[in-house]
């Protein structure tokens, strides 16, 4: 047995291997898709995330069955916590559900593809450069896509602004309308406490070419995370003025806000 297959046998149990293989993805003969997703690498990612999800963050997910079993769908949530931990947990919740699991794709910052190793690794586990063309092509491919419309405004927010929704972009609504994709809102509670930041050193971020440079502890705290998925929201694809699109975005934002409040009220303690 080669070293690689030995490591694989130790890290990836047979049922996990079967679980991933059962989720059919449109991939080529060598296990890749055009965005770099790799069916073998995701198994390692899945095994690692399972530990984080169940043991470290002890995630409680409600309503994950609201995500349709097939067809294009946008999973829209609130972004928080300096690192994209929320995206990973939301993705795992869907990929590990008992009934009709799916491996969703997450839209990531434009900064990541320029980072050696990390950019490729993120692509291999299903993350995709956050470009409207990518999102459109993926919805056309019937994928489930996770989008945080707040972008870095959300993930880079400081601890005193926690659970305050920043401005949402309208791009996701246009795509949802064009591809007739339902929107499943999700309220993420707990990720704000994983890496609480007290300040952002803007000159340092600029010098390093990164979106923000938080002043925070160099550890990820084991906060308990609550994910609350709402009912799918459907929008027609009529030609409407931008103002009305913004109104629709506000409806989604209000629903996410409600789901966050639900999570906050369910939460007994931070850790």
């Amino acid at each position, binding site marked *: 047995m080669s070293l690689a297959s030995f490591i694989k046998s130790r890290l990836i149990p047979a049922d996990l291997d079967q679980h991933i293989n059962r989720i059919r993805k449109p991939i080529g003969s060598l296990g890749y*898709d*055009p*965005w770099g997703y790799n069916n073998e690498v995701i198994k390692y990612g899945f095994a690692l995330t399972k530990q984080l999800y169940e043991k470290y963050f002890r995630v409680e997910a409600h309503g994950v069955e609201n995500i349709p079993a097939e067809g294009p769908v946008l999973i829209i949530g609130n972004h928080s916590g300096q690192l994209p931990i929320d995206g990973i947990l939301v993705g795992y919740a869907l990929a590990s559900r008992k009934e009709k699991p799916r491996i969703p794709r997450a839209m990531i910052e*434009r900064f990541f593809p320029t980072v050696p190793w990390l950019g490729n690794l993120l692509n291999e586990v299903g993350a995709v450069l956050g*470009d409207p063309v990518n999102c459109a092509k993926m919805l056309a491919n019937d994928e489930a896509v996770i989008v945080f419309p707040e972008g870095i405004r959300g993930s880079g927010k400081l601890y005193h602004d926690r659970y305050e929704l920043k401005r949402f972009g309208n791009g996701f609504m246009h795509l949802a309308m064009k591809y007739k994709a339902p929107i499943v809102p999700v309220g993420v509670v707990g990720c704000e406490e994983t890496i609480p930041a007290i300040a952002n050193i803007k000159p340092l971020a600029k010098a390093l070419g990164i979106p923000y440079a938080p002043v925070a502890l160099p550890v990820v705290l084991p906060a308990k995370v609550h994910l609350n998925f709402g009912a799918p929201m459907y929008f027609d694809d009529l030609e409407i003025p931008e103002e009305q699109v913004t109104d629709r975005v506000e409806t989604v934002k209000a629903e996410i806000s409600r789901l966050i409040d639900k999570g906050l009220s369910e939460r007994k303690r931070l850790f």
Partner: protein
Amino acid sequence: MTKQRRPHILVTGAAGALAQKVINQLRDHCDLVAVDFREQVYLGDDIPSYCIDFNKRVFEDLFRRYQFDGVIHLGRIQSSQLTRMRRYNANVLGTQKLLDLSHKYGIKRIVVLSTFHVYGAVAYNPALIDESAPLKSAGLSADLVDSVELENLANIYLWRYPELNISILRPCNIVGPGVRNTISTLLASERAPVLAGFSPMMQFIHIDDMADAIVLAYRKPTRGVFNVAPQDWVAYQHALKLCGCKRIPIPSVPPLVPRLILRTLKLRSFPSYLIAFFKYPVVIDGRAFAKEFEFQPKRPLKEIFRFYRDNKRPV
């Protein structure tokens, strides 16, 4: 009773392996004339072969003598060949001459071979780039300007003279036996450089499939620009592994370092102007071509890589 006239076709870039495959597919049904800018090749007694600079006056004599019906322009000088100035003359001015003569002598079908390099490799490239995407390469590397100019020129003629029926094909990496481009040389080598931490998605098409695609395109006079790529993808470093290459990592950050290393070493197999293509993916969408011309590649990636793995040490 007069015998029906066989189509007369001019094939450029005849010294290349791809052109010879195309010629072999067409020679039974067409009267071919082979031309190459670089060298004269022997293609059998039935195919006249010339080594001519398109910018010379004698080139026009071919059009007068053979009364072509179509042109298959595969003679783009690659960025690894000639100097920048001579390449510009050959690719841009030469192609212009070819298209002018085609218009003058009433050619009815032209297929121009371009490359996916014209899209340019940048970190923000989405995947499945379609034909309407801007050609960013010219702004990124002076060594790819002539390829973009060639395309633009063909595009101008495509719209200005619809009767020429120009189709421009932008294939992904063409590989396989006989191919001498950068990527094929890398896959065939014992040791191949990689940029540490970067393994972009790539697409490969077998030379025989590409020859099929060109012949299919020639036979159906649909004008337009088409990407040609199979529906299969692989990461660069994974491809090297499957080809049995040892990977030599080159430090990749900050961006100045690999550029400096490659410029100093002047590696022909890993040219500094293609560095971005080994860092960021340029994944093209070949579905429009596949649908329009009913094209289906027959050689899977595994077969392509097996060829390179088995031919590391030719006997």
